[in-house]
């Protein structure tokens, strides 16, 4: 007998999304249930007890952020992926405040969503506190204080440009995940542009210099040849 499938609740009021994306995720082996209304989604989460919730931000009844806030306020720590329409930096910061485990901009590809679901579920099993909503991240002798926007290495604060710090933040909140340059551009810069690939490489090189990380024998950031980067040090999160 097969082990019971992992269950997902997909909350979006657009049937073309719940229909097609739902079908894609079902084919990937998940048990998928859908809901179109925000307030009802909150009830459904209690009733169905899904392993992961995919929440659109714009919903009738109660918007996705409010659903997430209500969930977290009630002490529910189950993984949530937010689907946002606009990838503004301010909205990304909001997603962190509200305790989302990851967020994805529309229009996203179903394959990308699947990769995120897998990564979030894997992380949820290892980490007591979801890294995406932790205020302090520790990887060996490196500490990132997200509230103070400060990185400390061996007790010394390291000077970093805001964008470089944001890059470190994204890498540390998604450890051991392969980060393509497109994904980093999308998440940290908020958009991809043609010259962007090189922009990412330049920033990663800057970050490595700041961390004293050797690209040949990295302690923190590993290069996946022709694919992207991976944060390889284990990361602990603290509230």
């Amino acid at each position, binding site marked *: 007998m097969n082990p019971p499938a992992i269950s997902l609740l997909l909350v979006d009021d657009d049937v073309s999304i719940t229909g097609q994306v739902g079908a894609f995720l079902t084919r990937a082996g998940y048990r998928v249930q859908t809901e179109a209304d925000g307030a009802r989604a909150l009830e459904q989460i209690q009733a169905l007890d899904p392993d992961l919730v995919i929440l659109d931000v714009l919903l009738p009844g109660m918007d996705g952020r409010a659903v997430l806030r209500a969930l977290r306020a009630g002490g529910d720590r189950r993984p949530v992926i937010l689907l946002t329409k606009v990838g503004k930096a301010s909205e990304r910061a909001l997603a962190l405040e509200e305790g989302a485990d990851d967020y994805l901009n529309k229009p996203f590809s179903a394959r990308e969503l699947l990769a995120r679901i897998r990564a979030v579920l894997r992380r949820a099993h290892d980490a007591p506190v979801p890294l995406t909503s932790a205020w302090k991240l520790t990887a060996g002798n490196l500490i990132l204080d997200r509230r103070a926007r400060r990185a400390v290495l061996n007790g010394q604060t390291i000077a970093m*440009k805001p964008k470089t710090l944001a890059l470190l933040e994204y890498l540390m909140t998604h450890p051991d995940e392969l980060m393509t340059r497109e994904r980093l551009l999308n998440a940290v810069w908020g*958009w991809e*542009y043609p*010259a*962007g690939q090189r922009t990412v490489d330049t920033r990663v090189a800057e970050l490595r210099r700041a961390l004293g990380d050797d690209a040949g024998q990295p302690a923190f950031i590993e290069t996946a040849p022709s694919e992207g980067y991976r944060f390889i040090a284990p990361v602990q999160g603290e509230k």
Partner: protein
Amino acid sequence: MIRKLLISATPLLLCLTAGIAVEALAPRLPLLSLEISAGWLLVLAGLAAGFLTASFFFLHWWHGIRVESAVQAEKQTQVEAQNRFLRRLDHELKNPLTGLRAAVENLEESASENLLPATLPDIRLQVERMVRLTGDLRKLAELEEIPLEQSAVDLGDLLERIVEAAQAQPLGTGRDIRLVVPRVPWPLAPVMADEDLLGSAFFNLIDNALKYSRKSDAVEIRAANHDRQIQVEIADSGPGIATEELPRIFEELYRGANARSSEGSGVGLALVKRIIERHGGTITVHSRMNGATGSIFTVLLPASGAGENMTKR
């Protein structure tokens, strides 16, 4: 308000100063003997005051009309620009949607033949077109509000990297791209800029120069110190842009005759312009379609304070 009051009081003030001046400078001018009763004097004073008030109100009213018509005209241009934008957006979406619709209809009507492998790439292509378009439109809107991460940027280094990136992509292979950056006797003054954003603007310009010219055409990027500004020219020997199209090419979704069949989203130059303007700079274009054909895009950016002592005295 005060200005208008002053304007309407001008004739009175002029007479007053002229009278005082005449009395002071040439008191021996023939005396005009005029007998005037207190009553007439009162009437005259009343007339003067009345004239003053009337002209004040007239000026007020006239100025109001002028401001209103300027506001109206401004509103009109905005409405026109918005309508133009909506028409172009409609047009941009129509083509991929028509393609998608036909692809889906093909699939629906041919359950027996296996059209899927042949149709899927087309569907994917049209979808990616619309994804790119909405992505670029979002960037355009976001550009108004995102904070710039400013630092002193060496434009020479930046341009070198951007040219390398442009040359590394398929469009750039085997192309003649020349970069001229002054190093002697002094280098380019630094520019306070968001390096990533500014880099993407230059990349876009170079990319365009490559896209809208033949493989045998040359592309030249020339940077120079220009008083307290840095000038960067992106020049190509392509077919050039028609004079009537030049004022429109920086508008969102505008496509020139030459760009109609092109892959881009039609937002590239509008994005470039906004990026340059957010850095306090300007962008202009010159083009020729006869003789030595080609286009020159000229970007002017303010040099940062550190560079000011390097400019000429």
